[in-house]
């Protein structure tokens, strides 16, 4: 459950809108209950059969907007992914890369990684989500299973600082090699310079007053 105050993101700029006292609460628990609907029940059953430690290692099952997400313990990511790929009844042959997300307020689970999978055989999709603490951002690499994850993991390392153990050459890919910091983290400023136009100064985008 997260909580937010006011209507505008910028702090200290004097919120004159009268919305300063507004408090919004959000529930983050989206756990799904059986029956999941569609092919999701069958898929989860098959994975439970193929992966005996299912109940221990799958932390949460979320179904949102017709998409299935399994939250997996970070240390067991490789094994679950391998089960998805190698089980004949699942056959998720394609991993469509990695996408990191930074939740600074999610204590000890600050950095999330999302792996979308595609089964061309059954025309199905599934998503694995893992989280690691900012203090120890280590994840097993999936390059051994899908060579194509090489660049995706390098990008996630570059942008979020998540270290993929077992990656053959985990170096920066988009930013210069000697760059300091990981740009896609929420505490990394967007940057930019104020722009002067007809005597008035427009601050850079991340310092402007903006709606939440």
């Amino acid at each position, binding site marked *: 459950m997260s909580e937010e105050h006011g209507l505008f993101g910028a702090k200290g700029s004097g919120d004159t809108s009268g919305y300063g006292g507004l408090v919004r609460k959000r529930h983050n628990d989206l756990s799904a209950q059986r029956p999941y609907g569609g092919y999701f029940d069958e898929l989860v059953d098959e994975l439970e059969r193929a992966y005996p430690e299912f109940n221990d290692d799958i932390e949460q099952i979320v179904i949102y907007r017709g998409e299935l997400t399994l939250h997996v313990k970070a240390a067991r990511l490789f094994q679950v992914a391998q089960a998805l790929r190698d089980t004949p009844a699942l056959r998720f042959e394609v991993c469509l890369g990695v996408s990191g*997300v930074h939740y600074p307020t999610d204590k000890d689970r600050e950095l999330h990684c999302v792996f979308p999978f595609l089964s061309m055989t059954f025309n199905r999709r599934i998503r694995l989500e893992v989280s690691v603490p900012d203090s120890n951002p280590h994840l097993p690499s999936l390059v051994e299973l899908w*060579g194509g994850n090489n660049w995706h993991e390098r990008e996630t390392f570059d942008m979020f600082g998540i270290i993929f153990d077992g990656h053959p050459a985990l170096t920066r890919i988009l930013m210069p090699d000697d760059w300091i910091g990981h740009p896609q983290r929420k505490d990394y400023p967007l940057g930019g310079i104020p722009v002067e136009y007809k005597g008035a100064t427009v601050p850079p985008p991340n310092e402007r007053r903006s709606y939440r």
Partner: protein
Amino acid sequence: MTTQDPYASSRETTEGRVYSVTGNDWDSLVTEIGATKEERVVVNMGPQHPSTHGVLRLILELEGETVTEARAGIGYLHTGIEKNAEYRTWTQGTTFVTRMDYLSPIFNETAYCLAVEKLLGVTEDIPERASVIRVLMMEFNRISSHMVALGTGALELGALTPMLFAFREREKVLDIFELVTGLRMNMAYIRPGGVSQDLPVGALTKIRETVKELRHNFKDNAKLLIGNTIWMKRTQGVGYLDLAGCITLGVTGPILRATGMPWDLRKSEPYCGYENYNFDVITNDGCDTYGRFLIKMDELEQSLRIIEQCVVKLEALEGAPVMIEDKKIGSPADLKVGPDGMGNSQEHIAHIMGQSMEALIHHFKISTEGFRVPAGQVYSTVESPKGEMGVHLVSDGGSHPYRLHFREPSFNNLQSLAAMCEGSMIADVVAAVASIDPVMGGVDR
């Protein structure tokens, strides 16, 4: 022999002797390298090189003319679009994502908008006319993207005429874009909820004429290249990547279809109503550059077929809305293409400035604040000219995206360069890169 020219000299580094080549110094370079005992030469090609499709850097380890190792260096066009989008409203996001893969802007916009609509839960509420226009624009864009791929690919292999033909055809497509959106590239035309404006008067007639011209003109390149001995020798068996390689590397699009796999998201997971159109998925079992070239040539005709079906549908849907009914999402401004590009219509300005205070407030609120999207995450995909373009979109319930990530097909497919090129001749690297068709704006984002 060392020259004094600071840009064309050699120097010792920790990795060995580094030579800089600037032109007209080939003989002295060959003499100098020939004098050393080193057999292995690492050649750095790019990032400023005419045949590397923009700012792509290739690092090639050579033995004679054979490539023993190939690596791609990217990031020279990284512009932080994903980060920037986090500071803009959901609607403003389209103006950013359209600049990613700048040769297929409509696909970027559609992929992004489909993701936003999925998060909003309004996928079913998008007006049919808007979906048909999206399909129409996407298929035109597929043609213009394939035209650049074919044209520049041929140019890099030394054939100038196909490039002239291809750009002639692309120009006709860009004319349509200009007519409909006011812009030739980076249109931000597809918006969450629909499209920014309806087709202008007479657009369907012009589209019909263009389709006829394109179909006629496509034959020029086909006659020139298909079966051409020089072209076949440069492309057949070059850049080989089979199905297993494609699957492990996550390669999609024409490269995957060139292995005989009929995988096309327009068929397997239809979006924007693609299930209502008749078209074929083109495959080829060459697994090589020539196969990919043939697929692109044949996909042009399939795109024309879809466009013709769109025109018929649009005629039946004349006057139907092109933006979602929900006034909390759709822009109230009735945008029109004027002589200086796209802008508000005069009637709308007269209405909000002279007649209705509430309409003005609404316009102001939706332009500055935008709308909020329920918290959650989605992954939505479209079949771009290069393969599966996926959008991972996360919302925290606010008026800006919390995280936007594009799974760019160019970025992913470019990884297969090493698998395609190692062991081949250096001249074939150029052909292989051209067949991957990477657009660095999309690769680096």
